[in-house]
């Protein structure tokens, strides 16, 4: 028998073990299907059912086919063969929870109306047995009119029978019958169908009738004008007067049918036994204990993101340095080497550096979701989040953004409501992420933590910087929900699934998928942004006389290296000469005038490379742009150097530390070394040198000399509010599938940052008089 690939769709409520079944059937042969215009992704897997090749599509978990958004409609259209990218499924597998057939068979009854063979996979038969529920599968199949197969997806039990049923159903091609609807409903639906000719399949005409304000209704109104809404309204009124008001008529018809099928095949104990979920919930959703445990879980999650990610991030950083050194050693210097080292290797490094945080956060999210705790977290935090127009589901994404907005934005996928999800995505980058820390530490170290100032001041300022995010983000969310993203409050009703032991394989897979999605799709955009900024800082690379800066810097470095020993010797001698001799000790030898002159000259040689580098960057395209833009920076109290550093930090905030280093002639500074006691001595010295250079440079200037503190605060506030992070913008682009949202985020956050920084500086100046 010649067989083509069989398309099979997997449909079920959330938390039925749908993904477990999908993974069990398709193993590692999976890919992700994207659909234009919507943000849903569906997984596709391959497997063989008795020699027949099957393509299995995992549809998003849903309670019903009543689509309320384009995202939800994709699944319905796919099942009806109305998506051009996919062939119509030959069989639909409806996965249901054996402990909760009364509710899960509702969706099954809707699937029976689609004109496609259905196989019902009854999962979690173990749990049903524990609760004393027995199911007669022969009788259940008879009542439903389609095969019902017992499975235990997490143990791989029943999969053979399931694939056999799938193949047989596809071969027979028998179309099942769903529940009977009242006569009046059928007549009204038929009437409506006539008016639309064959434009919509009957099942969607019924959906338009029952789903008040649903997607099908909206689609019909868009295509037939407002008068069609009047037609629907009058049809619904007719049904209501006949005693079959929507949407109740559908629910009653289907649940009556479900009840009959369950009564014929399922026996339950007379008294419902107390389940583990009952016991656990009495603690975890308890007003006091539940809250305390929640806070503890969040703290642990947070702490591990910081603690566990740090060594991995350092490892990526040193790996990046090693590769850069290797390339520098094997390639001749020139624009190509610079592109590879500073553009590509740096760019790839700055993408990979986010991976540890993403993997750890998604590991946590997968565990919390798998075991059923995520819904409880949303339950506990809903009231707090509803104050800013969001729901409890936004809490974890927002909190995660304090570590890094990228995994936070990726975690918003749990929010079904589009407006809520967008609002959360748009404000997540306002939360103070860990990349802002080096900027804060550098400036606090240079201007706030001065000898003589109160010891609590640096901590207080750092705390204030974090508070900016915590207060501005909810305010912006509220504003967005009242303006751009206005709409009826979404339905909060949510299932709290039974607790279950998380599966390590599923958790690892979630981590892998999140990491892969980020690296491939966001990574390319970040890399491009890094290369553009690198080029803007690299060109032109020749000075006024046509000499190449990179070559001059190399020569200066070589010259400094040659004299390094002599410099060290003189420096040591100089230091020793300044020591006060203790009683009885001889006066140390003093430097001769020639030696003093030599020392001065050698020190100048040593600083020559950094000086040249600074001159080069000031003459680069970006440097000149900064100079021209100086009037724009003036209200913030900034000079053009701060401005250029801010512009150059577009790919990532922490880049400002390195750019500051170059512009202030101390050389490239590793942001990780700022305020890090464990950093390498050389890096630490440079970081300290930068602090000193910034202090000295600002002291020379009339504005920044007098108002150093307001200027430092102004820079910090700018970085607290701005969106100088190409990775975040790339992820917003990816998650919203529209360039408009990252553009909006960048514009509104930059405007907010500018105004915030200006207010900070101007108020500071007034206070200082």
């Amino acid at each position, binding site marked *: 028998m010649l067989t083509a690939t069989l398309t099979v769709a997997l449909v079920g409520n959330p938390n039925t073990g749908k993904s477990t079944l999908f993974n069990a059937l398709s193993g590692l042969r999976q890919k992700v299907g994207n659909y234009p215009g919507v943000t849903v992704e569906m997984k596709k897997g391959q497997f063989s059912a008795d020699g027949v090749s099957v393509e299995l599509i995992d549809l998003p978990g849903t309670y019903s086919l009543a689509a309320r958004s384009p995202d939800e409609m994709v699944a319905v259209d796919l099942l009806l063969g109305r998506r051009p990218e996919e062939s119509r499924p030959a069989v639909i597998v409806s996965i249901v929870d054996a402990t909760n057939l*009364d*509710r899960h068979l509702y969706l099954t009854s809707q699937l029976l109306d689609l004109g496609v063979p259905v196989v019902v996979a009854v999962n979690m038969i173990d749990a049903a047995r524990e609760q004393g529920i027995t199911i007669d599968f022969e009788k259940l199949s008879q009542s439903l009119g389609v095969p019902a197969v017992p499975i235990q997806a997490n143990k791989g039990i029943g999969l053979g029978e399931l694939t056999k049923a799938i193949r047989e159903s596809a071969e027979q091609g028998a179309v099942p019958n769903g529940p009977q609807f009242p006569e009046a409903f059928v007549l009204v639906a038929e009437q409506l169908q006539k008016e639309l000719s064959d434009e919509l399949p009957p099942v969607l005409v019924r959906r338009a009738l029952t789903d008040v304000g649903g997607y099908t209704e909206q689609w019909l109104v868009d295509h037939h004008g407002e008068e069609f809404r009047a037609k629907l309204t009058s049809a619904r009124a007719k049904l209501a007067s006949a005693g079959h008001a929507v949407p109740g008529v559908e*629910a009653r018809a289907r649940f009556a049918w479900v009840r009959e099928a369950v009564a014929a095949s399922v026996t*339950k104990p007379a008294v419902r036994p*107390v389940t583990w979920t009952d016991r656990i919930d009495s603690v975890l959703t308890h007003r006091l204990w539940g809250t305390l445990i929640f806070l503890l879980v969040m703290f642990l999650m947070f702490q591990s993101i910081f603690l566990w990610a740090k060594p991995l991030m350092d490892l990526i950083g040193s790996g990046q340095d090693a590769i850069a050194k290797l390339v520098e050693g094997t390639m001749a210097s020139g624009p190509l080497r610079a592109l590879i080292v500073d553009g590509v290797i740096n760019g790839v490094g700055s993408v990979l550096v986010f991976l540890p945080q993403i993997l750890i956060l998604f590991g946590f999210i997968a565990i919390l979701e798998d075991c059923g705790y995520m819904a409880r977290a949303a339950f506990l935090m809903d009231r707090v989040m509803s104050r800013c127009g969001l729901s409890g589901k936004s809490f974890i994404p927002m909190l995660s953004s304090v570590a890094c907005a990228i995994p936070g934005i990726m975690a918003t996928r749990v929010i079904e409501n589009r407006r809520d999800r967008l609002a959360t995505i748009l404000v997540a980058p306002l939360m103070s992420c860990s990349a802002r820390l080096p900027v804060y530490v550098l400036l606090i170290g240079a201007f706030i933590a001065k000898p003589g100032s109160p010891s609590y001041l640096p901590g207080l300022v750092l705390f204030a910087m974090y508070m900016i995010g915590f207060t501005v983000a909810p305010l912006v969310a509220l504003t967005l929900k009242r303006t751009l993203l206005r709409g009826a409050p979404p339905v909060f009703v949510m299932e709290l699934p039974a607790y279950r032991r998380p599966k390590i394989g599923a958790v690892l897979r979630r981590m892998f998928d999140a990491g892969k999605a980020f690296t491939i799709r966001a990574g390319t955009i970040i890399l491009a942004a890094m290369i553009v900024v690198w080029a803007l800082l690299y060109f032109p690379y020749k000075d006024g006389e046509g000499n190449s800066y990179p070559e001059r810097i190399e020569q200066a470095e070589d010259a400094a290296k040659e004299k390094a020993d002599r410099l060290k010797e003189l420096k040591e001698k100089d230091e020793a000469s300044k020591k006060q001799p203790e009683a009885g000790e001889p006066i140390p030898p003093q430097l001769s005038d020639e030696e003093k002159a030599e020392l001065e000259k050698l020190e100048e040689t040593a600083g020559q490379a950094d000086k040249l580098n600074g001159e080069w960057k000031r003459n680069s395209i970006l440097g000149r742009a900064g100079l021209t833009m100086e009037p724009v920076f003036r209200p913030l109290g900034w000079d053009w150097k701060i401005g250029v550093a801010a512009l150059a930090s577009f790919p990532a905030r922490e880049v400002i530390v390195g750019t500051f280093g170059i512009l202030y002639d101390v050389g490239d500074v590793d942001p990780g070394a700022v305020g890090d006691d464990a950093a390498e001595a050389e890096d630490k010295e440079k970081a300290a040198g930068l602090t000193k250079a910034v202090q000295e440079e600002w002291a020379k200037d009339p504005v920044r000399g007098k108002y150093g503190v307001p200027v430092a605060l102004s820079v910090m506030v700018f970085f607290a509010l701005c969106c100088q992070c190409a990775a975040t913008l790339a992820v917003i682009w990816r998650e919203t599938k529209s360039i408009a949202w990252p553009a909006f985020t960048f514009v509104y956050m930059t405007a907010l940052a500018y105004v915030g920084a200006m207010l900070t500086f101007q108020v500071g100046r007034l206070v200082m008089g």
Partner: protein
Amino acid sequence: MPTLAELSPGQRGEVLSVTGDPALVQRLYELGLLEGEQVEVVALAPLGDPIEIRLGNSRLTLRRAEAAGIAVQLLETRNSERGTRN
């Protein structure tokens, strides 16, 4: 007639009517919360909102404002048994 929002944890009721925004009513119906079903309030969130309810073998959470549209007939609470009738 009390609404679901007025029940305290541990109290049970039989649903008499479900009203509210069409999307909300439809979602509640889809989850099996129909007229004639029995529900039990299990817990309240820390600030008293939302509430957690049990319906058959499922647990749902909904906001007070949403629960206020569900009229119920208060049922006797039987403390003598550990479980409840299926």
